[in-house]
């Protein structure tokens, strides 16, 4: 019994670790899409941030410096996306894909030129990473049945960016639903003409949304490179930006449900790792590919209308043209 309990705890523990970049990236996507800008470039921004964080941290030796530069780089790409799609009204999907391709190549080439390790950055020692934090009273509380191990294995022992990810979600909710900025943000994604008529700048609001997304993608990329791992490797984001977008749709563009979708996808991932080669009673061995495909399948099923409707912000994907 206690063995099963521990396995469940460890699976959930892994879920937190795996979901963290998804949650932060999905929140970045939420800001962009709520403001009416489709952001396929989450993947590229995260990858660029991962590369920046790992490089800076390797050279300077401070994870915080890595995080700072990662956020700057990611914001720079977000502004590029904004310049192409908001200022020049280019196609948002094309611009996003262009960013992904640009970063995939550029990170490896810069890595080769700077570090001569085949596009990798040097492996980091523990001083230049975000390490796990053990929360207070872990051992004192360990004697309490169920809650003690729960606290020790599940709540404690993550790095600061994991806690940050879960703190960001309520903040995003508050900003989007309870502030003036949030109201305008949602309005600009639904009906930019009305916002414009009210005398607010659509362009400025959309740029602001992308900038927030840039900061968040910077954190997500930093987590992948120097918290969860200890160096940058080629294409290390491995499609998590797209999974975050799927979670955004699955969570219907609302912060809390998006977080739950990310946790579900993370859980499936953590479960897949542990179910490999294990025969379940009555079902037999589940092919890993089935679980791997599940997030995408769920999203497609949702989009087909089987589990509720997913209605994107009305003006999402449409560049705003001021009427003359």
């Amino acid at each position, binding site marked *: 019994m206690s063995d099963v309990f521990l396995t469940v705890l460890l699976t959930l523990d892994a879920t937190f670790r795996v979901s963290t970049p998804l949650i932060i990236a999905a929140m970045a996507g939420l800001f962009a899409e709520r403001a009416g800008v489709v952001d396929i470039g989450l993947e590229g921004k995260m990858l660029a941030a991962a590369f920046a964080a790992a490089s800076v941290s390797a050279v300077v030796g401070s994870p915080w410096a890595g995080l700072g530069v990662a956020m700057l780089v990611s914001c720079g790409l977000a502004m590029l996306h904004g310049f192409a799609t908001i200022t020049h009204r280019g196609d948002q999907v094309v611009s996003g894909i262009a960013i992904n391709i640009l970063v995939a190549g550029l990170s490896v080439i810069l890595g080769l030129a700077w570090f001569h390790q085949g596009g990798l950055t040097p492996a980091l020692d523990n001083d230049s990473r975000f390490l796990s934090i053990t929360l207070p009273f872990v051992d004192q509380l360990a004697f309490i049945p169920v809650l003690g191990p729960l606290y020790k294995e599940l709540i404690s022992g993550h790095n600061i960016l994991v806690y940050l990810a879960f703190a960001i979600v309520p903040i995003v909710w508050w900003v989007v639903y309870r502030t003036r900025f949030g109201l305008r943000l949602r309005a600009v994604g639904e009906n930019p003409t009305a916002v414009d008529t009210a005398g607010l700048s659509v362009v400025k609001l959309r740029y602001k949304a992308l900038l927030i997304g840039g900061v968040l993608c910077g954190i997500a990329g930093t987590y992948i490179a120097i918290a969860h*791992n200890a160096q940058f490797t080629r294409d290390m984001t491995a499609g998590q930006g797209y999974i975050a977008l799927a979670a955004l749709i699955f969570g219907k563009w609302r912060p809390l449900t998006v977080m739950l979708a990310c946790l579900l996808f993370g859980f499936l991932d*953590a479960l897949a790792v542990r179910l490999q080669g294990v025969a379940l009673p009555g079902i037999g061995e589940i092919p890993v590919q089935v679980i791997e495909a599940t997030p995408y399948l769920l999203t497609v099923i949702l989009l087909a209308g089987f589990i509720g409707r997913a209605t994107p912000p009305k003006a999402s994907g449409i560049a705003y043209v001021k009427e003359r």
Partner: protein
Amino acid sequence: MKLNKITMAIAAAAVVLTASTVQAEIQPAVVYDKAGKFDKSFNEAVFNGIKRFTADTGISVREVEPTNEVQVEQGLKKLAKRGNSPIVGVGFNQANALSAAAQAYPNTQFTLIDMVVPEANVQNVVFRSQEGSFLVGALAAMKSQTGKVGFIGGIEIPLISVFGCGFEQGAKHINADIEVVYSFVGSTGAAFANPSKGGEIARSQYEAGADIIFAAAGSSGNGVIQAAADMGKLAIGVDSNQNYLQPGTVLTSMVKRVGEAAYQSYATAQNGTWKPGFVSMGLAEGGVDWALDEHNRSLVTADMEAQVNALKASIIAGDISVHDYMSDNTCNY
């Protein structure tokens, strides 16, 4: 003084001329993989082999460093057009490009490392990875305290399962009761470049009681080694010597000597014994090996070292035959 120099130059030329009558004049070349020649891995090993060849013979090797798929085929063809031969292609990714180039230039000698294409003018160098994996598996079994070791592969394909099967045979050879758990990172090419996932899988294996993991999963393996370091366990590297990545955490590495393959290809072309078809490199030919250096010295006792080297000798002598997964796509040995 001047006269002296001229005489020396003539003498040197004479030496070169006499040498060339014995050895064929070759214009060797190489096309690296996209990772580039300073990748601290596969390509750099080839580069080192080439450097050694140039130092030994004085023959320089023309190099191409492609940055994308298209340039691989262009590079191979351009080298062939300029009369270079033999041309070495590094890595299984070049199979299609090399096949096309070999058809276009049937009189040029091509050598493909780590993959097979059935062309009449191509030498295919493949490694008996199962033999090296056997050795590291045996070492893992000697070192393991929990009686459980893990294998993490990139994708579940024969090319990767060869490593796992050899590893299991070696482990079972030392301790028949040892448990070997298998996991694979994914089912697409991204599985070889996902250190986060590699690390998560490693954590789950360690949490389930394994204390040493052998990873054959490209850069996902870096995540495995990192997870081992974070959790105070051991990992085994692959392809190149990865012991230095985390000294004290990497028990050993299963090395493929790709540089040796390139060197041999040029040397045989030079003395006229280069042949198309299969070249299989195992422990006996120095194609695969286990790595022992200052980074893992403290982890391997003299007794273990002696045992592993004895096993190596037995495999070379043929007393132990290691089953090749690819021969029948099963791991029944």
